[in-house]
């Protein structure tokens, strides 16, 4: 398959793995956090950890947009879906996420009209085709998916649709990174920067990480060769005594990002005062809401939402997993009370969540990691 096979070449992978092995100091562990859930998924799907020396430890970060949505927001979405005459449209990954009172899939079974779409534009099309129903798009995701929501809002306004709204849950990548970097006893030495988010916000957006927190960043694409190359680039920075933002994903990411996408976000959305993150708590200015001129499309203003804050289950340690403090299996309920089939915490819901990826693809490697060199 063109444009994919090149980035999955086994011979190249072996030579990169050998290079990585030559760049580590025996016994000295470097902890690399891949921020993005897409990276986590690729690492497990291709079994990349087995190609790495024990001195490179991967920590799976908070970049799964499904995993960070708090339960209260899921309940709000269910309340919208259960309103008479309303269709709630969302990405497939959100359907199974547990709220305080079940998931959207369970609400659907009770009779709510919940539909899976692949793009917010599909939701808009649904509204156009079914003028007798109100269609609300449950928008989630980082700056990656926010431009599509923004364009959809602009189109909805241009088409003067009166039966369409957006329940905006778009979040920003910088605040959770800062929260992680400010975690006492931080166990992360270097960062693999997100790929798709960076195509929108640009690689320069991470300069605060080396400049303020002294950790190097390499923005990476999603194929195994990309990830191995990014790890090698991070290790080279350490050897050279450099600490900066580098861009491995030059085929897509520019330093300044995508100005048109950023402009569309800025026209339709503005930062909220604060937003609750699953596992990370309330972070200031960490999410987006619709701007005043789009109030007519704002589900938060159109619907009476419960807006409850629901504590994460006590036993669930998603927060510590997301900040790299513990490995998924160190959580007491991992694989017992919390499984992909019946997830307690959101890290177990999406295949990009650290716990689910680990449970589904990697749980056999645990003995190897436990026996690995200590800090």
């Amino acid at each position, binding site marked *: *398959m063109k444009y*994919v096979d090149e980035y*999955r070449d*086994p011979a190249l*992978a*072996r030579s990169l*793995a050998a290079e990585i092995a030559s760049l580590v100091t025996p016994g000295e562990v470097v902890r690399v956090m891949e921020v993005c*859930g*897409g990276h986590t*998924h690729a690492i*497990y*799907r*291709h*079994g*990349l*950890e*087995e*190609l790495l020396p024990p001195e490179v430890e991967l920590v799976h970060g908070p970049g799964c*947009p*499904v995993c960070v949505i708090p339960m209260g927001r899921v309940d709000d979405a269910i309340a919208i879906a259960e309103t008479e005459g309303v269709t709630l449209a969302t*990405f*497939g*990954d959100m*359907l*199974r996420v547990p709220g305080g009172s079940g998931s959207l*899939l369970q609400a659907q079974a009770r009779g709510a009209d919940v539909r*899976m779409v*692949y793009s917010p534009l*599909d939701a808009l099309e649904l509204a156009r085709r079914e003028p007798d129903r109100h269609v609300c798009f449950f928008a*989630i*995701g*980082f700056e*990656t*998916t926010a431009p599509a929501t923004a364009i959809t809002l602009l189109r909805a306004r241009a088409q003067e649709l009166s039966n369409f709204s957006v329940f905006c849950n778009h979040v920003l990548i910088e605040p959770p990174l800062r929260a992680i970097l400010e975690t006492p006893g931080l166990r992360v030495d270097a960062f693999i920067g997100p790929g*798709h988010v960076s195509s929108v916000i640009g690689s320069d957006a991470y300069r605060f990480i080396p400049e303020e927190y002294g950790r190097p960043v390499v923005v990476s694409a999603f194929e*195994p060769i990309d990830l191995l190359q990014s790890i090698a680039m991070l290790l080279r920075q350490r050897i050279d005594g450099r600490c900066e933002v580098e861009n491995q994903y030059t085929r897509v990411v520019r330093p300044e990002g995508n100005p048109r996408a950023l402009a569309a976000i800025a026209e339709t959305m503005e930062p909220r005062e604060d937003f609750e993150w699953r596992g990370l708590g309330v972070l200031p200015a960490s999410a987006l809401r619709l701007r005043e001129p789009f109030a007519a499309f704002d589900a938060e203003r159109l619907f009476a939402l419960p807006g409850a804050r629901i504590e994460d289950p006590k036993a669930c340690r998603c927060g510590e997993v997301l900040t790299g403090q513990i490995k998924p299996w160190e959580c007491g309920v991992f694989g017992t009370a919390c499984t*992909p*089939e019946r997830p307690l915490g959101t890290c177990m819901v*999406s*295949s*990009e969540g650290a716990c689910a990826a680990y*449970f*589904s*693809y*990697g*749980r*056999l490697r645990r003995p190897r990691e436990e026996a690995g060199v200590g800090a």
Partner: protein
Amino acid sequence: MPEPRTRRVLVRDKRITLTHGAGGKATRDLVEALFLDAFGNDALAPLGDSAVVSLPPGRVAVTTDSYVVRPLAFPGGDIGELAVNGTVNDLAVAGARPLWLTAGFVLEEGLPIDELRAIVTSMASAAGHVGVAVAAGDTKVVERGKADGLYVTTAGVGVLEHDVVLGPERVHPGDRVVLSGTLADHGVAVLIARGDLRLEGDIQSDTAPVHELAAALLGLGEGLRWMRDPTRGGLATALNELAAQSGLAVRLREDALPIEPAVAAACEILGIDPLYVANEGKLVAVVAPDVAAEALARLRAHPLGAEAVEIGAVEPEPEGMVLLDTALGGSRIVDLLVGDPLPRIC
């Protein structure tokens, strides 16, 4: 035997109405004009409450399956062909020679009769190709909106004309896993045919009867341990069931898995793992290591098995698990699927 029917019945309606399910003349005309005309055989012809047949000697295999695919027709096949091949395949991988099918139709009011006729014709042609007789049938009509055009349930009866016992208990460490051809064609073809993805591609469903492939492998005798047709849930699900039931492990080689480039590309775009996507004309088998080459030769001698390959082996542990050695040199667990294989979002 009653006199052969000579009266030619015509259905003049353009669409199915509730009358066609009322059990009166319209029902009888529909049955005679469409079903009897297409399926005509000695067992069905009397239109009694039961078909009465005589079983040849041997153990008997019985199976049933319901077909609810949307859209009703897709590149490479339609629901009728699927309903015959699917049930034939369930019999075949149990080691049976398929002999009779029954077909139960739930029709939605408003279904164009021409569409129904096309589906029934393709069922008859699929059954004729395999040499099974549709010996009994039933038709019900439900109100508009209560079914997606039509649903078909087929049941099948076959006979095992040999002494080979197949099953997970016969699988041993060291046995080899062989697959008759490419993965994921059916699921991806149907997904694209639905049209909601705005993806286009020349991908055909692989719907086909695997009874001749199964018969070829049965010739291996005791060397054949286990067979399945990896339909819903794909190869991963079939092998997970084998691993769980046998208490052994299955280790696959990613670089040996045959996947058409267009199918692989569609799976990449949608974020779907082809290991979990349905096949409708493939056979996966576990064979003893000393007959693995012979098994492949037998499969490859048939047009449906031309691309047969060995994809992995059975190992003593980890108990109940399916593992995959990735092309890159790593490995991962191939777990049971939770929920639908929904595309990831970023």
